[in-house]
């Protein structure tokens, strides 16, 4: 059902925007490079983990404070422009309780493999329909994405 909804939503955006969206919409489709990184048919088994290279994340308790520190810095540089830390939506959803709503693998795949996620993952597509702005690929490394995840856990009250 969602697969039918998305094209309608996209068509609607095209109709309502004042001018054709240059060719940027096309360019935001997954590139060959992205596809390679995500691996063939990755994570088909468990949809709650999203689509991408991240198949298993081992969370540590307590939090890795070095990761939290690095994650905070990356958040401020590359994420804060669109994501607030409470539950308010700015450009994208607020991050409050995101680690409770999503699997850690899904979060990291969304960060690392956003173009494929927005095109194929049903949960990601729901968010696009809500926010109507495609999340940009901020080209962070796997390690960076893990640091961001740690920062999100701290934001959600984990110790």
């Amino acid at each position, binding site marked *: 059902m969602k697969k039918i909804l998305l094209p309608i939503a996209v068509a609607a*955006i095209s109709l309502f*925007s*004042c*001018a054709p*969206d*240059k060719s*940027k*919409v096309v*360019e935001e489709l997954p590139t060959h490079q992205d596809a390679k990184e995500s691996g063939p048919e990755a994570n088909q088994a468990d949809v709650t983990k999203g689509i991408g290279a991240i198949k298993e994340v081992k969370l540590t308790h307590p939090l890795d404070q070095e990761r939290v520190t690095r994650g905070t810095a990356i*958040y*401020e*540089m*590359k994420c*804060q*422009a*669109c994501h607030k830390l409470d539950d308010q939506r*700015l*450009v994208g959803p607020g991050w409050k309780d995101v680690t409770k709503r999503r699997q850690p693998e899904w979060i990291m795949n969304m960060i690392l493999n956003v173009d494929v996620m927005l095109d194929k993952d049903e949960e990601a597509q729901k968010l696009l329909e809500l926010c*109507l*702005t*495609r999340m*940009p*690929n*901020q*080209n*962070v490394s796997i390690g960076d994405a893990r640091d961001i995840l740690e920062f999100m856990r701290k934001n959600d009250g984990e110790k």
Partner: protein
Amino acid sequence: MINRNKLFSLGITAAAISLTLIGCKPKGLESVTTSGAAEKVYVAPGKHDEFYNFVSGGFNGQVSVYGIPSGRLLRIIPVFSVFPESGYGYSEQSKAMLNTSHGFVPWDDQHHIALSVTNGEHDGRWVFGNANNTPRLARIDLKTFRTTEIIELPNSAGNHSSPFITENSEYVVAGTRFSVPIGDNRDVPISSYKKNFKGTVSFVSVEPTSGKMKIAFQIETPGVNFDLARAGKGPSHGWFFFSCYNTEQAYTLLEVNASQRDKDFIMAVNWKKAEEYVKAGKGKKVKNVKYAHNFIDEKTDAATSEILNEVLMLDPTELKDMVYFIPCPKSPHGCDTDPSGEYIVGSGKLAALIPVFSFTKIQNAIANKEFEGDFGGIPVIKYESALYGEVKKPGLGPLHTEFDANGNAYTSFFVSSEVVKWNVKSLQVLDRVPTYYSVGHLSVPGGPTKKPHGKYLIAYNKITKDRYLPTGPELAQSAQLYDISGDKMQLLLDFPTVGEPHYAEAIPATLVEPNSTKFYKLEENKSPFVSLGEGKTKVERKGNRVDVYMTAIRSHLTPDNIEGVRLGDDVYFHITNLEQDWDIPHGFAVKGAANAELLIMPGETQTLYWKPTEVGIYPFYCTDFCSALHQEMQGYIRISPAGSNLPLTFSTGKIVEEKESGK
């Protein structure tokens, strides 16, 4: 018109020959392409071209990049002229790139380019370009396709014979077109040319890793006009060959007065010998010079300009065995060394033959002192002693020669508008094709290197007349693509060019494409004006200077509401593009700005200076269509009267329910 063309096309060969003889432009020969041409130049949507073609822009001062074989324009790289489209020459970061000893110079004439080489083959690292009018050399980085360095050339006037590059990019040279008085007394009668006017050729060294340029030394010569040049290679590596005309030393009506002698010269320079003299301290330090050296400072990611006041001069009348003249008929223009490095082709633009000189014979002539006298104290080698042979009756007005990998040369003929293919060893003409019209330079991929890639030849034409839909009196200049893979050259494609397409080089895409930068990493942004995240944005006042540290990301600017700026303030918008994805630039413009827009690549910081002129609310917005909400990417800055006490405030997303904000 169509009927006429058909008539003409019946006798193409006969027409071409007769037109050659009477020296007119061929007309109405559009149908010379044969079937299959379209397939050879068709690059399907989404597919990439096989070669990059870097084409000098002539009077537009820039370098343009075309794909070959499609002829598609991929990019204009701003070099010597301001480019409001990207803010080049307008942004605070780029302004210093156009600084000279004469101050900020917003335009120049860009004639030739040279691609960097290692072991005589293209290495895909840098493009060098010359400025003709205010003599300068530029270096473009092929990772970013941006001009990263410009150096001015003192004691030069009209940097035409430039840039040409040695086998391992040791030096890029710059020979002056106009000789002028140099030294302490430059206020002399023009009529004292013979006594007071001097030529120079500059050897600019290229640091092997960074590419950084430095004038290593200059060689002072008698007053003549230097035209073009080529480095030796292989056996002739260590030598450089410059064509020169006006050995009559005329200073007025050169059209007549510089065309008197049957032969002018090719100047052969033993630059390894020159290096020895430099090492031995034989150079003279000239201090009454002033020249700018501009480069991207790695600490700030911005152009910085330094003025230098010293250059090392070598005098060949005192330092022997370094410079020789070789007679060459008549007003030589092109001076091209073949891939083997043994043959040097001179092209006298008023000559009806092409002389080919032998490096081995030149060396023997020097060893045996086979000289016919001297010119300005420099030995002149006997023509016959240096000559390998002449190509007889090749056409009218030979200009430039490029080479393929099979021992063949391709020479352009301006007057007879044609390209002539001939064999370097046999000196026999093998084929000729017309061009439309008045061809200047030619380019064969890898043509000036030790290992030409061949396959195509591109002719750059000065005149197009009836070739395209007319656009008033001013028409596009053009390039024409020929297939040279067979015995006969085959015209495949015409494509219009921007500016005047002067010299060009083509390089396999595989040597450049994999290194192309996709975006600048935020973590590596060293600008002192960067905002690494929205939390770092701010607006600061120091006296009348207001610095706005702003970020751009789809689809908002932060801050987007600014108040407390006053008339009389100097406002600097420092915009950091927070995107980290390929092909997502943001633009920035503010109403009434007296310069240009900024175009900010992902991860980069650029600064626009703005002096508000009236009290009021000024909008600013993103100028590069970036997203579905691009039209929402905007903000306001409030300009209050001079002396207003309104405090400086800035915000994004803050909604203040006041009837009038700020009071």
